[in-house]
């Protein structure tokens, strides 16, 4: 585990207010999900999960076919598809288009994919104004932060922090009433929507048989971003495809419930191509950017390929004891929680944060709630094996191997083992609770100290089992 990762974790653990905020928010989301799946609310939930998993498997295993089908259908509806291999490809395309159309102002609806490629910073660098319009995203954009949670990006902020932020950045009076804060944002963003030249969205699903982009949201900012400006650009990872519009009967039932406990979110938009013939409004140009950015690399590994099934509901974050303790910003990349722990090493390389796959208790809660049944603990284990193998290749991890060899040798020599045990009981500090809390002086060396910082050792007994055995009175004779 890197020093930076460790420091971030300790900072999050030491912040009582933050701990409460994460715990509270994730608990509410868990309750809402539970309620949405209880009793008669969705009796065929497990069957839907199996179905979603099978559909995603079919799509990802034959992804080139569905990408080409999708592309052909977007073109058939007068839209354009732009394949991009990385962040630079995407920003080059958007900058060129903006220049050709004389565009200056861009409104954006929530998209993890554009977070992944730091799109806002890239556009701002070229004097384009890109404004996030989802309330949570707007708040973190003003604060120059990354989303704290896939679904609830500003989960870690209190109303008082938002009040200070709005006062500082927007020049409005310090307002701590959440309803009024929301109306302030509505007012500012309404002007942006009406003045914007380009709207950029993500995509919850790309529909191969329709050439359509499906967006789910509660605020209406995605509808405005994709309908008010003259140009709509959807930026999506190539893995977002599903085969058919009718498959939404499976995925929409799972997504809203898993994310926020809603059977359907307030708005579900099914968008295909620019405005047509008689239609009165909607964009005049429609582009879908299909982003690779490491996804094709991930596809190569059939054992971990299922990491691309994710529909970004955030349920694994809410149910993860590690996420709930260390929070979203402790994770090394934009994707946090269990899903972040499996896709970050595969997108960014194992060395980005080698400790990440190990930062899990493998309790399995994530796999249990995942609506598309990604076996996250299994992928974590494979990644751990990869990290260890890489260490060995680089000749690292020698000390650890040596320590375990020494331990194995000691275990095979009973006399020495007993002497070591007696030594330990003599040297161990006194304990009334039966546990050694903290790190005994003799063990205070870096790797042991780190290991013991999260664990207590049982205090050595006054008499070892061997000693008790030798002095036992055989019952069978005393009768």
């Amino acid at each position: 585990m890197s020093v930076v990762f460790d420091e971030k974790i300790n900072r999050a653990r030491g912040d009582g207010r933050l701990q409460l905020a994460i715990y509270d928010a994730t608990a509410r989301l868990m309750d809402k999900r539970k309620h949405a799946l209880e009793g008669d609310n969705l009796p065929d939930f497990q069957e839907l999960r199996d179905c979603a998993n099978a559909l995603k498997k079919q799509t990802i295993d034959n992804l080139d076919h569905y990408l080409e089908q999708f592309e052909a259908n977007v073109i058939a509806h007068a839209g354009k598809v732009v394949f991009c291999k990385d962040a630079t490809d995407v920003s080059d395309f958007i900058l060129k288009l903006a220049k050709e159309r004389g565009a200056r102002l861009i409104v954006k609806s929530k998209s993890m994919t554009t977070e992944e490629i730091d799109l806002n910073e890239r556009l701002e660098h070229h004097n384009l104004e890109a404004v996030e319009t989802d309330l949570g995203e707007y708040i973190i954009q003003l604060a120059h932060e990354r989303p704290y949670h896939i679904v609830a990006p500003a989960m870690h902020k209190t109303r008082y922090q938002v009040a200070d932020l709005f006062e500082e950045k927007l020049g409005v009076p310090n307002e701590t009433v959440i309803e009024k804060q929301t109306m302030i944002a509505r007012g500012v963003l309404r002007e942006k929507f009406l003045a914007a030249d380009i709207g950029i969205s993500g995509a919850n699903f790309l529909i191969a048989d329709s050439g359509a982009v499906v967006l789910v949201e509660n605020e209406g900012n995605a509808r405005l971003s994709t309908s008010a400006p003259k140009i709509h650009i959807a930026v999506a990872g190539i893995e977002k495809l599903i085969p058919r519009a009718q498959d939404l009967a499976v995925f929409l039932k799972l997504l809203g419930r898993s994310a926020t406990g809603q059977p359907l979110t307030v708005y579900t938009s099914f968008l295909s191509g620019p405005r047509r013939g008689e239609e009165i409004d909607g964009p005049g140009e429609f582009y879908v950017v299909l982003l690779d950015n490491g996804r094709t690399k991930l596809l190569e590994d059939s054992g971990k390929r299922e990491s691309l099934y994710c529909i970004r509901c955030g349920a694994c974050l809410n149910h993860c004891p590690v996420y709930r303790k260390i929070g979203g910003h402790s994770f090394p990349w934009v994707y946090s929680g269990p899903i972040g722990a499996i896709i970050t090493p595969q997108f960014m390389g194992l060395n980005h944060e080698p400790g990440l796959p190990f930062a899990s208790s493998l309790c399995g809660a994530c796999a249990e709630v995942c609506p598309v049944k990604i076996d996250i603990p299994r992928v974590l284990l494979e990644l751990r094996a990869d990290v260890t193998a890489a260490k060995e290749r680089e000749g690292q991890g020698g000390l650890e191997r040596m320590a375990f060899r020494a331990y194995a040798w000691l275990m095979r020599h009973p006399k020495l083992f007993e002497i070591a045990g007696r030594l330990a009981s003599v040297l161990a500090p006194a304990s009334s609770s039966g546990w050694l809390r903290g790190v005994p002086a003799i063990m205070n060396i870096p790797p042991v100290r780190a290991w013991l910082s999260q664990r207590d050792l049982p205090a050595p007994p006054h008499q070892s089992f061997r000693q008790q055995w030798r002095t036992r009175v055989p019952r069978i004779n005393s009768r």
Partner: protein
Amino acid sequence: MSRELILDKVRIALGRTKGQQPPPLPPARIRIAEVNIDFRVAGMLQKVEALAGKTFLAGTLAEAVNYAASVIDGREAVASNAPFLRECGVTALPGVRTGVTDRVELRELCASCAVGITSADYALADTGTLVILSSGHEARMISLLPPAHIAIVPRGRILSGLDELLSILPFPAEQTSSMVLITGPSRTADIEQILVRGVHGPGEVHVIVV
């Protein structure tokens, strides 16, 4: 360009060749609940109310228009070009503008009006959802920009749920560039998980079933 590069990488990663067909998909999982029309109407109204929307079950077109008039209450309103709204007579109410077909003009009108009035192509009883397909009759902005949205829906358009909608419209993209499902008033819980209605879309939604 990147297109061929990416598609090639995908094929190599998956061990597939160009043009190779995938195995056939199983039939889509569509399960339509048999619900009679009275239950569908009742379900629709109950679900909308549960989402803090307002509802009104009108026996006649005139009742629907009267209710709409009480909601509009003298405010500026814009109505879509749906023939059904004209038949209702709601477009003839004072202060209601309709018949706009210019994109810019409509947008400005929607941005200044307090109430937007639409019909709906379908409604989904099990979730309390309005389904609107963008067309010359229904624009996107009317149900989006004004702070209040009134939808007047003939009861025959109420389907049991999403599955029935997708069985009637297996290819929505062939009909329209935009199909939107509206389930209650616009809302957010992005600050401290406190629910606030009417963020960017209407905070007030009235569903009138005729």
